[in-house]
């Protein structure tokens, strides 16, 4: 445990309540959008702007304190624990969607075609239905979009795998450079990582376009489309967030905020980046490949 003679307790801060209010406004705006209420989009946009304002303000507050040397080893450890357990909560969020995917593939789709204890369901609901994966013909084809094909694993997804794995390497090289105090290399490797992240997102967007316009693979394409788009979509969103975080770290590196021994923010973002990397491997294997 850290230096025991001095504790750090921050003074009152407006950011937590600004953040709560901002999130509240965004949620109200989003709910109004779903309800097609008038002026919903303004509420939503004001909310989102307030969320961004809160993040910018809160983080700049923390960065200032950090640069002023107010944080001791104990604060650093608290931040590390915070980030680590936050990433675990993110893992569990993805686990829910992977769970849905496995459940559909292993249980609900075979049951619908009469396997196991699904005999009666099959007979009375959709006796014509045959299980397959990817499931392009739904048990009840009306209201669902039958897709022509899925996105093959060994095309853009494999390339994206390579891109993300490489970005995992580049961020590690950046870390090594940081630990050696070579700021130039740190910035270069970080820039490479941000670029790789951006390329990944760009390819992913292209893929979605391809799926929607040519393959007729949509959110409404039954359980395959649902799991495909929600899993890859939330992952893509996390990559985007991770790339934004990396870009902020790059800006801070350019300003020389980090030292050899004191660069928790860099490490936190690197952990996050490795986390989106690992999730992608799961996606590549279970969504695209197998």
């Amino acid at each position, binding site marked *: 445990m850290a230096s*025991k003679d001095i504790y750090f*307790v921050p003074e009152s801060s407006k*950011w*937590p309540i600004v953040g709560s209010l901002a999130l509240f406004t965004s949620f109200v705006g989003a709910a109004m959008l779903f309800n097609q209420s008038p002026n919903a989009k303004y509420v939503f946009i004001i909310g989102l702007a307030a969320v961004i304002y809160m993040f910018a303000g*809160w983080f700049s507050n923390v960065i200032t304190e950090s640069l002023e040397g107010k944080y001791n080893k104990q604060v650093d450890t608290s931040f590390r624990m915070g980030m680590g357990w936050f990433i675990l909560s993110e893992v569990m969020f993805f686990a*829910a969607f992977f769970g849905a995917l496995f459940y*559909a593939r292993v249980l*609900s789709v075979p049951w619908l075609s009469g396997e196991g204890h699904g005999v009666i369901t099959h007979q009375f609901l959709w006796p014509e239905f045959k299980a397959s994966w990817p499931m392009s013909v739904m048990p009840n084809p009306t209201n*669902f979009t039958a897709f022509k094909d899925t996105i093959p694993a060994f095309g853009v997804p494999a390339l994206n795998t390579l891109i993300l794995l490489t970005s995992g390497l580049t961020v590690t090289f950046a870390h090594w450079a940081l630990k050696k105090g070579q700021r130039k290399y740190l910035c270069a490797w970080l820039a490479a990582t941000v670029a790789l992240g951006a390329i990944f997102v760009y390819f992913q967007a292209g893929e979605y376009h391809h799926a929607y316009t040519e393959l007729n693979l949509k*959110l409404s394409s039954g359980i395959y489309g649902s799991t495909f788009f929600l899993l890859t979509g939330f992952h893509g969103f996390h990559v985007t967030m991770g790339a934004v975080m990396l870009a902020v770290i790059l800006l801070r590196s350019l300003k020389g905020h980090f030292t050899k021994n004191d660069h928790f923010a860099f490490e936190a973002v690197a952990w996050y980046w490795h986390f989106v990397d690992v999730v992608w491997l799961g996606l590549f294997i279970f969504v695209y490949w197998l």
Partner: protein
Amino acid sequence: MSTIAHANHDHHDHKPTGIKRWLFSTNHKDIGTMYLVFSLIMFFIGGSMAMIIRAELFQPGLQFVDPQFYNSMVTVHALVMIFGAVMPAGVGLANWMIPIMIGAPDMALPRMNNMSFWIMPFAFALLLGTLFIEGGGPAGGWTMYPPLVLQTGKAFPFLIFAVHFLGISSIMGAINIIATVFNMRAPGMTLMRLPLFVWTWVITAFLLIASMPVLAGAVTMLLTDKYFGTSFFNAAGGGDPVLFQHIFWFFGHPEVYILALPAFGIISQIIPTFARKPLFGYASMVYATASIAILSFFVWAHHMFTVGLPINGELFFMYATMLIAVPTGVKVFNWVATMWKGAMTFEAPMLFALAFVILFTIGGFSGLMLGITPVDFQYHDTYFVVAHFHYVLLTGAVFALMASVYYWLPKWTGNMYDEKLAKIHFWLSTIFANVLFFPQHFLGLAGMPRRIPDYSIQFADFNMVSSLGGFAYGISQLLFIYIVIKCVLGGKKATAQVWEGARGLEWTLSSPPPYHSFTKPPKVTKALMDY
């Protein structure tokens, strides 16, 4: 910016004043107080909904409210009591007590702490606001099962986002507690010297981090099923409504322990104090709590025995459920063994703790009955289930929270509460909670379904008894508010130790404690924690 230096450097009692003290707070005691007050308000809001439910059920037939509104009362009562009353009360106690129990100046991440609190009122504004919009509040039950919940009107997205919002708050709170306990302990406060309340809370925090995101995932799927044409829970598209129940209860069962474990911790603090003996089997209590937490991730399907699971699944989940009785039994026996040959006195906290041990055990036993698959086919979705979880949550969790308030109120306010009134509150609560919920066992066994505004006339007598108990229980809680306010305003001054048999760091601080709890880490020795 206050970097708190040594104790003789005396700016630790300087505090912000006015409304800003509360809005912008970074103080664990202020935030804890806000949590507790919020939770008390929600307890009464949720309670008034329960009164509406019991009034409607006083007699067969439709009396006061239309069925849609009745259903939304059932739904919102549950959400308010679980997420608005019991959980925030637990977090409030954690905020107040954990730093002063482990010898820390504050929580590890004080600003995030304030955000986890301030999300709560906004999240409930989202949820409760739906009662006043076109179409009324959510009425598909707090478990939000599709396809029924997808028929919710304009309240639907508000419900989903309220759940997301509360999840964010819980996860931030949980992370904070873990960082505090693992990083802020005073020297000598080893893990196996931690007060049991701290142990149960840190284990609860892990449950929150692992289960709340799963709930967020489940309600997100509901949202996309309703608005974006996905078919997670639609068999016509290859999904399965039962999938929602699996994901929901993967969250839901750990959630039960999120509500119960802090209560176990409270009881494990109170019984040794008033038995004037150390807790029997400290280590086994820690391991039992951890076992309950781990097992809670492998029993979820016992909530869904009747949906048509494969037989192997039903057997697995039945046996796994039975296993939880083992560590829970360890706890009950340890509490009883702590009292054995103790020099017991029966102040209000101890009375509530004793009632907890007995009544929670009744709830545990009815839980075992429900966990047995073949008989659950009869009990499922009857009033027996309602009786079961109200024994666990009201005479369990809420009684423990009442006990904790009486136990720590002198520490918080510096004043003793009115013991005589507190005892009256205890007896009224205990008697009427049983009048309220015990007959519901019989109703359930006789076949009365839950979540129904009207019922067959053979259930009339027990329902009337239950309703009378309910009204009386509700009214007697007003006494609790009076006692708390009276204590806050004044009363006999409390000593630092407060209770003769109290042990631990929190009793070494003055009552009320200084604004920043420990500005200088105390030295924790075995003797401090011992008898």
